[in-house]
């Protein structure tokens, strides 16, 4: 909740700084900048690159600040670490009271600490010492060294002077102390506002993990091998899907019989999400490469078929007529008119298919695989290796984004007339 408020605050602050600071000095005087009606004119809405940069930086800043990263100068309050102290008041059955101090050493999980030595002190309640990891809690049997124990009928009636009874919790300087139903004390040091590394590791841990896995590997394969296998499956599956789907789509666009024959099949298979096919594919082809590739083939096939069919339907009839009356044969019409004319549609389909394939491969690897990006994060999550999981998610995102950028580049290079007719 606090993170959301900070995020919105940064969003708004950056907007005002950029709008009234940066833009004052660097005014672009192109045509769009002279438009007065921009609200509602989609063509006048251009992404503000400052906003994009600040947006990405903000995410890393918040991530770093709330995980205690060394890379980020500002931190949210971290967990309490060090020696915490509180006093409890023990009441003997005869009504007599005595105070004793508990010293708790709070350490970062993973470090070695010694429980500090304390003087037992005066009275029938003796001082105690204990240790607890940050973000953890510790059950303190405060009366184990006391002269009168709970068995004798003694009970804690106050902590740091605040009266308590069983089941209640009070705040002390460095955390909270709860009195359990059985009368012992449970000390939780203050957690601060940072995330514990097992939930969300700081960015440098993730980066360090990239280096580690890239060199040493994880689950018998290096990072690059995991990613390579995922990409390999996508590319082979997509290529096979396109190799079958595009000719099938053309056939459906050009022949009554093909259209009639495959229409029910395509229309039935199209809404079935590829993920729903995973169980069947595993039954039929196992969890090896062939199973994955069959799945991705099926994921790409229908999309490519439909886009090729749409590409053929999208050919203006006047172009077909023009080609025929210029003396083109059916084959020449196909080669010089229908195929080039359907390329924009096919590219759109290919972009969608690549996106679906990439999502499907990761999901398929999550279910069962020996290697691959999805398998890597699945196994890591079982061991609560959050840094590997986050690293995997980031890399999967980057690769998916990269694929889309490549497809778009290929599109502008191969079909420059798209959207300009």
């Amino acid at each position, binding site marked *: 909740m606090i993170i959301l408020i900070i995020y919105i605050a940064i969003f708004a602050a950056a907007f005002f700084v950029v709008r009234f600071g940066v833009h004052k000095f660097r005014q672009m005087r192109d045509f769009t900048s002279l438009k007065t009606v921009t609200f509602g004119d989609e063509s006048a809405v251009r992404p503000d690159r400052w906003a994009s940069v600040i947006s990405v930086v903000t995410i890393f800043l918040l991530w770093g600040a709330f995980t205690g990263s060394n890379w980020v100068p500002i931190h949210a309050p971290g967990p309490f670490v060090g020696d915490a102290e509180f006093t409890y008041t023990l009441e003997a059955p005869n009504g007599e009271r005595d105070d004793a101090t508990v010293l708790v050493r709070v350490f970062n999980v993973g470090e070695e600490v010694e429980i500090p030595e304390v003087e037992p002190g005066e009275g029938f309640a003796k001082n105690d010492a204990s240790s607890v990891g940050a973000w953890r809690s510790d059950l303190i049997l405060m009366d184990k060294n006391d002269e009168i124990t709970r068995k004798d009928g003694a009970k804690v009636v106050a902590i740091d002077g605040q009266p308590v009874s069983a089941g209640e919790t009070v705040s002390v300087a460095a955390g909270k102390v709860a009195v359990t139903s059985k009368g012992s004390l449970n000390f939780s040091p203050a957690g601060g506002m940072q995330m514990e590394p097992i939930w969300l590791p700081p960015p440098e841990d993730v980066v360090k993990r990239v280096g580690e896995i890239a060199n040493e590997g994880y689950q018998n394969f290096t990072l690059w091998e995991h990613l390579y296998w995922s990409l390999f499956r996508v590319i082979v599956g997509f290529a096979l899907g396109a190799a079958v789907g595009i000719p099938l789509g053309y056939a459906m666009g050009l022949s009554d019989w093909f259209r009639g024959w495959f229409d029910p099949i395509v229309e039935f298979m199209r809404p079935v999400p590829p993920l729903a096919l995973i169980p069947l594919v595993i039954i039929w082809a196992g969890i090896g490469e062939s199973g994955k590739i069959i799945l991705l083939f099926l994921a790409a096939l229908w999309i490519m078929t439909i886009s090729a069919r749409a590409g053929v339907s999208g050919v*203006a009839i*006047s*172009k077909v*007529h*023009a*080609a*025929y*009356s*210029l*003396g*083109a*044969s059916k084959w*020449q019409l196909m080669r*010089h*008119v229908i195929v*080039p*004319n359907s*390329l924009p549609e096919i590219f759109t389909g290919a972009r969608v298919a690549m996106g679906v394939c990439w999502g499907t491969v990761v999901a398929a690897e999550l279910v069962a695989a020996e290697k691959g990006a999805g398998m890597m994060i699945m196994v890591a999550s079982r061991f609560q290796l959050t840094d590997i999981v986050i690293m995997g998610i980031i890399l999967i995102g980057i690769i998916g984004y990269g694929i889309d950028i490549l497809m778009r580049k290929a599109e502008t290079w191969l*079909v*420059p*007339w798209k959207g*300009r*007719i």
Partner: protein
Amino acid sequence: MSTLSIENISMRFDLPNGGHVQALQDVTLELNTGELMSVLGPSGCGKTTLLNILAGFLAPTEGRIILNDHPVTGPDAERGMVFQQGALFEWMSVRDNVSFGPRMAGIREKEWRGTVDHLLDVVGLQDFKDKAVYELSGGMQQRVALARCLANDPDVILMDEPLGALDALTREKMQGLVLKLWKETGKTIILITHSVEEALLLGERLLVMAPRPGRIHKEYRLPFADDGVGKDLREIKKNPAFGEKREEILSMIWDMEEEIMGRTEAVGA
């Protein structure tokens, strides 16, 4: 020699609701080589259907078309088409569009290069030959379409409202170009148009068609196309005889439209 005969063409097809449409009824016509005939008529008079039958895209239910002593059965390079919206191939340069016909016929480049270059000169696109067609303006695109059709050296050119999508100024320039090309190449041309003025300016013969069923209403022989070659077409339009004809044909088509409207209203009431 290459006369085009349209012999008793009728076209009638069924509708899904059980009715039928008589798109054309008993159209008979003969064109000699080198004649330019413009076709006018209210919408629904079957002029586009007639053109599609001539091109070979549609089969008539009765009658036949004879060109060069053989019947027309399908599209062929001997009958070139020019469409309202260019119908150019965006993935080819201007030059590749113009040379499409010869290339499809398997003619080698050195044999068609001269013709194509000459045609690009004639339509004034020599400087644009390597441009992509989507970079050209509408008028230029239509000039590419004309050159592409001529590069194939067809016997008959069928134009389906070729200048309909152009602005008034470009349209006037293009009308001059069509006349020039017609005279220079001596092609037989059938031109469908919505503009009475254009039909009068360009048509050596003018065919007015009537709707429901589509049929020939009246035919004119006009002097304006011959007069207009190489001249300012605006001068021709000032000719009182031109104005008279225009009024005559306009009121004829107007009457037909009125009749259709009246009939539709009567059906509705």
